[in-house]
């Protein structure tokens, strides 16, 4: 553990620190480029591109070895990787343009066949026992520990250039991502910009080969950007956040993988990024799972409270008691399909909010609407009845069929919509009496529910 902290604090020696810095810059670049890749829906094309670099790397090594040059030189290998990546992209385009193969099949074919070619070439190179061939495997899953300081600096520099390019072209890239046809109509060179994004993906992939490896580099492009997506709607913030998350994932991932034996760096980096992603998925304030669950639960609670209020109101109404009439709690609980526990919770919440009062009587508990409670109950009931009336008069539904729909709609009708409803109904003469604040239109269908009690008691339920 101490080792990891040493590395993280850049105390583990010059080489390690430079490699760490280079990898972090790579993560930043991947986060930025990944944002645009994500928005342009090129995520899996990047995967094909990455896998396609494999034969390029091995091929470059082979070519260098045959020419008597050291195959271990990184620029040579990276050039080979880039060339192969471009050929991969061209192959995807050529295949998907042929009539019977569509793009996803083309991507899958290029991804796997190029990788297979790389595997075959590698098996040949391994037999040659040329110097440096053992290191070729590391391009698959990443081995930053095998990087020299010079290589790390190159990676860092290229990453910075990529980020600067994105920043310079930010407005244009944003336009191309969100409204391509508008951009084209405005005269922006959208195809060139698209190619630019793809080119940046090639660059990030190629510099990421040693740190993350070609099999998993696509995850570094997608995951931090997708994680950032949970936190914000604004593109510039998403890009910055993606950069930060990508950088952090690489930073932590490389440090851990340097210390842990038999832990391929690519896997650790991707898992770190995925952990960050999971945290974002669950805990992001607006769009995270937790936030949505809370919102959803709160909304459910509100909805059911309003149902309960309306049930009380209707019970009082049907018993003929005036305001202040008490309703038997037991009967109320049975009027809708609440579980006993749920009903108890609802009643308590309503009581706490000061909308009902629960009183003990000789026949058991009863609840009474307070002033505020009655106003809210009235509002909900009115919404319900108005909507029912609307469905009957304008949508020509039978009165027995409108309760269900109104049950759901009553909660979401805003004041303005209610006024328009009333106007529409009045226009059709479907509103029997002019309304004021008190009183709701009568229900078009019989109401079954709790029995009312109180002055004038007697008539009981409907």
């Amino acid at each position: 553990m101490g080792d990891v902290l040493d590395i993280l604090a850049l105390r583990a020696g010059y080489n390690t620190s430079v490699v760490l810095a280079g990898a972090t810059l790579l993560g930043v670049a991947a986060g930025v480029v990944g944002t645009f890749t994500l928005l342009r829906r090129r995520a899996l094309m990047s995967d094909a591109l990455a896998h396609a670099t494999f034969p390029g790397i091995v091929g470059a090594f082979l070519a260098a070895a045959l020419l008597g040059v050291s195959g271990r030189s990184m620029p040579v290998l990276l050039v080979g990787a880039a060339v192969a990546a471009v050929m991969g992209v061209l192959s995807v385009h050529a295949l998907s343009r042929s009539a019977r193969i569509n793009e996803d099949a083309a991507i899958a074919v290029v991804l796997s066949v190029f990788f297979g070619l790389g595997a075959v070439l590698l098996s040949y190179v391994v037999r040659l026992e040329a110097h440096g061939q053992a290191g070729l495997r590391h391009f698959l899953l990443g081995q930053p520990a095998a990087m020299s300081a010079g290589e790390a600096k190159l990676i860092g520099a290229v990453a910075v250039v990529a980020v600067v390019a994105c920043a310079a072209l930010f407005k244009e890239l944003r336009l191309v991502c969100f409204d391509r046809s508008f951009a084209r109509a405005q005269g922006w060179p959208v195809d060139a910009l698209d190619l630019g994004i793809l080119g940046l993906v090639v660059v990030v992939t190629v510099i990421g080969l040693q740190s993350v490896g070609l099999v998993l580099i696509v995850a570094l492009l997608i995951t931090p950007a997708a994680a950032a997506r949970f936190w914000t709607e604004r593109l510039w913030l998403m890009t910055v956040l993606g950069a930060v998350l990508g950088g952090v994932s690489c930073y932590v991932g490389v440090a851990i993988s340097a210390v842990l034996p038999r832990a391929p760096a690519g896997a650790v980096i991707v898992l770190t990024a995925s952990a960050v992603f999971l945290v974002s998925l669950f805990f992001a304030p607006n769009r995270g799972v937790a936030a949505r669950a809370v919102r959803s639960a709160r909304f459910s609670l509100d909805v059911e409270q309003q149902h309960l209020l309306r049930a009380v109101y209707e019970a009082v109404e049907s018993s003929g008691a005036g305001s202040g009439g008490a309703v038997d709690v037991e009967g109320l609980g049975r009027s809708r399909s609440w579980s006993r526990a749920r009903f108890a919770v609802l009643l308590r919440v309503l009581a706490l909010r000061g909308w009902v009062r629960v009183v003990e009587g000789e026949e058991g508990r009863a609840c009474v609407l307070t002033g505020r409670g009655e106003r809210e109950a009235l509002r909900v009931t009115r919404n319900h009845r108005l909507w029912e009336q609307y469905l009957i008069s304008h949508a020509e539904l039978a009165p027995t069929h409108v309760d269900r729909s109104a049950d759901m709609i009553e909660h979401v009708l805003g004041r303005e919509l209610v006024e328009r409803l009333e106007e529409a109904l009045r226009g059709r003469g479907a509103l029997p009496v002019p309304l004021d604040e008190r009183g709701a239109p009568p229900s078009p269908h019989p109401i079954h529910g709790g029995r009312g009690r109180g002055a004038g008691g007697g008539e009981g339920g409907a």
Partner: protein
Amino acid sequence: MSGGGGAELALFFVIDFPAMLAGTLAAVCCGLLGNFLVLRRMSLTGDAISHAVLPGIVIAFIVLGTRASMPMLLGAAAAGVVTVVLVELIRSGARVDPDASLGVVFSAMFALGVLLIERAGQLRNIDIDADCVLYGELEHIHWLAATGPESLLDPAALAQMPRQVVTLAAVTLVAVVVVVAFFKELRVVCFDPGLATTLGFPARWINLVMLGLVAAATVASFEAVGSILVVAMLVCPAATARTLTDRMSVQLWLSAAIAAVSGAGGYVLAALVPLWMGAEHSLQASGMIAVVAGALLVLGVVFSPSHGVVARAVRMGRLRVRIAREDALARLYRHEERAGAEGAALGGAELVGALEGVVIGRVALRSLIRRGLVERVEGDAFALTGAGREAAVELVRSHRLWEAYLVHEAGQRPDHVHRAAMELEHLTAEGESGRGRLVPESDSRETDPHDRPIPPRPPPAS
């Protein structure tokens, strides 16, 4: 049979035969099931499945310490469920493109699998590593009980057939049975899931069963070809078959045959051919299988008689020649009209015109002469023959009728219609029935909008 030959044959059956069998079975199994992925444009789902099952496989291996197939299949199924749940959460929360959500989840799971496999090697004292995951271990599948071809008929030896081969054979058999038994349902679900549901086929269940079979095939093939190359097996044979035929039943069996050729041929090319050619080592078999599959796909795309690039170019070339021919005939006719004399000749260059290019033009001219529609008058001048004049009349009639139609019925301006009529005339010039139906009621007109006479309808051939 000399002793040496017998020993070599035995060696073949111990080492090569089971590996080749495993590779071929993996290819056939995946190739057959892959049709449904390709047809439903779900090739990348196959990619995702093959990556996502890895942690399930590894965890099953760690927990149970065995590579037996049933627990692995269950582990893979569990991983599949986790994947689906996570993908759904991401899609609904981040509003991220479904491809990208898939990418995030399956690369995270793959990274987890890779990490576990590297660490699991230590736990279980077995030296497995990420290479197996990436390329499989065809070369390590041995049939130790074999002594020669007679072992194929020896139940005792057959009982010792390597586990991977047995699993693959079983899964292949299940795949074949399912595909044959449920061919009709699968076909409807592939092409029109909505129709399938209305016809009473449970489309969603069928979908799930097929994906489950794909997962099983992936797991079974995992040890043979690894997680990445299996994608080539899923997509390439099916895509190749699709370029060759339009009928699904033919496509299915063709893809199985192509897959078998890829599997066996790939193995032979990698493991046996190098040795036959005197090299000391063989090449990577699983990679070669993928390469062969890809090469067959390219061959299909280029050379397919119905959909291939070459076939389309030939068809296009023929069409261009025909149009050039007809244009030349019409040009000669108009020349005769202007000159007021039959037999008026045009020089070769003028006749051919600039529209179709020199080569096509010359080919067209030669074709006209061969068909007896045009004859060389002297030097470089050509004129219509009697038959040629008849053909030209049809064309010019079509052209002028179209012009009349466009002006009088479609309301175009007279100076705008020549271009369109030049293209449309070819549609209606050939064949009695076409013209009779397509050329509308402007039949009875005598002049076109440019006041040129419309040649009368030729008398029917007696």
